[in-house]
């Protein structure tokens, strides 16, 4: 993950302000031009002896409350288990919408429902400072091993092709359906094209506009641990459990897993 090597990354002064590689990683949630990220932020919980890693904040409490409310509104969603049931639910028309990332485009287009689909930005939490209609999920990283004999060449390749080559991004979008995250690629023809399947919407342009609005978040290196801890609390929240108790339980589990 990109996050894990953040602290090892070069001196921030080494990079130009318009460094394309830095721009690329900024989109992925980390800006190497900013000072190397501090140690994971430790929030101090009110009632615990050890400092908390996950404490109630102005953003996570409303997020969990909203999630619990959604889970309790069993009429508005269809519970699914596994990928086939998941894609089947919206491709068959049984559910009207799906919240997901750009990569679902190919699955939706395979359903032969041209003109019946549209792409919209995600809703945001009201009254939460910094909430946006854009979010990112997943992602992957490129690594260059510092011990590699071809280190400079590899860095050069990543910087010139993945970091600069706008045409390359048009080619992989058309040929492979891969939507790159380089913001400059938006100006290319493939990104500007509109799609009849989505009622003539310029879907790629939309996605890359939203991409630019994604606030950079440092997830830290324990993403999967925290993820598992939150998932473990969801059934309790769905049954109407208290959000504060859930956050305390998440905190206990994450602290346990981090050692």
């Amino acid at each position, binding site marked *: 993950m990109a996050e894990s090597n953040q602290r090892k990354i070069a001196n921030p002064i080494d990079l130009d302000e318009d460094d394309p590689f830095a721009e690329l990683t900024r989109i992925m949630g980390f800006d190497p031009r900013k000072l190397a990220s501090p140690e994971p932020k430790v929030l101090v919980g009110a009632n615990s002896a050890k400092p908390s890693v996950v404490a109630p904040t102005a953003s996570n409490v409303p997020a969990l409350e909203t999630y619990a409310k959604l889970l309790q509104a069993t009429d508005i969603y269809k519970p699914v288990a596994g990928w086939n*049931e998941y894609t089947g639910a919206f491709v068959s028309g049984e559910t009207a919408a799906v919240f997901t990332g750009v990569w679902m485009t190919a699955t939706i287009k395979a359903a032969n429902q041209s003109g019946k689909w549209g792409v919209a930005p995600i809703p945001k939490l009201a009254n939460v400072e910094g909430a946006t209609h854009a979010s990112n999920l997943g992602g992957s990283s490129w690594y260059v091993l510092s011990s590699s004999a071809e280190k400079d060449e590899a860095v050069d390749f990543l910087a010139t092709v993945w970091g600069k080559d706008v045409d390359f991004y048009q080619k992989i979008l058309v040929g492979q359906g891969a939507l790159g995250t380089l913001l400059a690629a938006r100006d290319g023809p493939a990104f500007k094209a509109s799609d009849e399947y989505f009622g003539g919407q310029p879907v790629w342009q939309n996605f890359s506009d939203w991409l630019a609005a994604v606030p950079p978040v440092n997830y830290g290196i324990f993403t999967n*641990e925290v993820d598992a801890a939150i998932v473990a609390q969801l059934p309790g929240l769905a049954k109407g459990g208290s959000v504060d108790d859930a956050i305390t339980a998440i905190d206990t589990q994450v602290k*346990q897993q981090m050692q």
Partner: protein
Amino acid sequence: MAQAKLERSEQINGWLFVAPALVLLGVFMAYPILWSLWMSFQTGKGMNISFGGLTNIMRLTEDAVFLRALRNTLTFLVVQVPIMLVLALLFASALNDSRLWGRSFFRTAIFLPCATSLVAYSILFKSMFANDGVINDFLRFAGIISDPIPWLGDPFWAKVVIIAAITWRWTGYNMIFYLAALQNIDRSIYEAARIDGVPAWGRFWYLTVPMLKPVILFTSVISTIGTLQLFDEVNTITLGGPSDATLTLSLYIYNLTFKFMPSLGYASTVSYVIVVLVGVLSFLQFMVARDRRR
């Protein structure tokens, strides 16, 4: 003199013959076992580890996820193994009856699940028990339920699905051991019992079961070991969910090693928990099943 020389050369040849196997066993079995024992005392993430003494064992007692995985694994063990062994025993004695029509067909049919791949059958179970799967469709068609059962979304039903899956997969396997053992029981014992007026259940309970005791012990030990190591089914069907309700010790070891930031030392400690459990439970089963006659 010549005799001693011959003996010596036989000794050397003997060791040379077993040497390749011994080397392979040493490199791929003894060494990893000892290394994992050493690892279980290390703390830290990835390559950044240090000797922690008993820290990992202390961590076990405070780790709610581990305790949940342990409880789930023991639940599977306590519920599934007896059901499976009783079923296997009943199937075996039914299919041992030479008057039964089509018994080779039934023998094959019950044994066949063992020939399927663990992942393949798990995927089938996953789709059968989906919300729109054939099981829910059938139950609704038969009028037994009105709303679909969230088989994989509910902590209780998810456990039921896992138990059903492993029972389907392994009952035939255990049945084969019982069938083989039943062939060795002298028919004249049953004839004598029949002449003495012992009813069918009595012949089963007082003749078949005691005479199968060593085999029952064997199957219960291997089933215990198998259930404690349960991984493929839960990883394919539920991924340990919902909310860790089907998380097993093996899946937790996998998560600690490959999903989370790798805690190789702590994961080794959890695997030694399985080793200790297997040892203790096997010992207990031998104690319970041992002959009381002196």
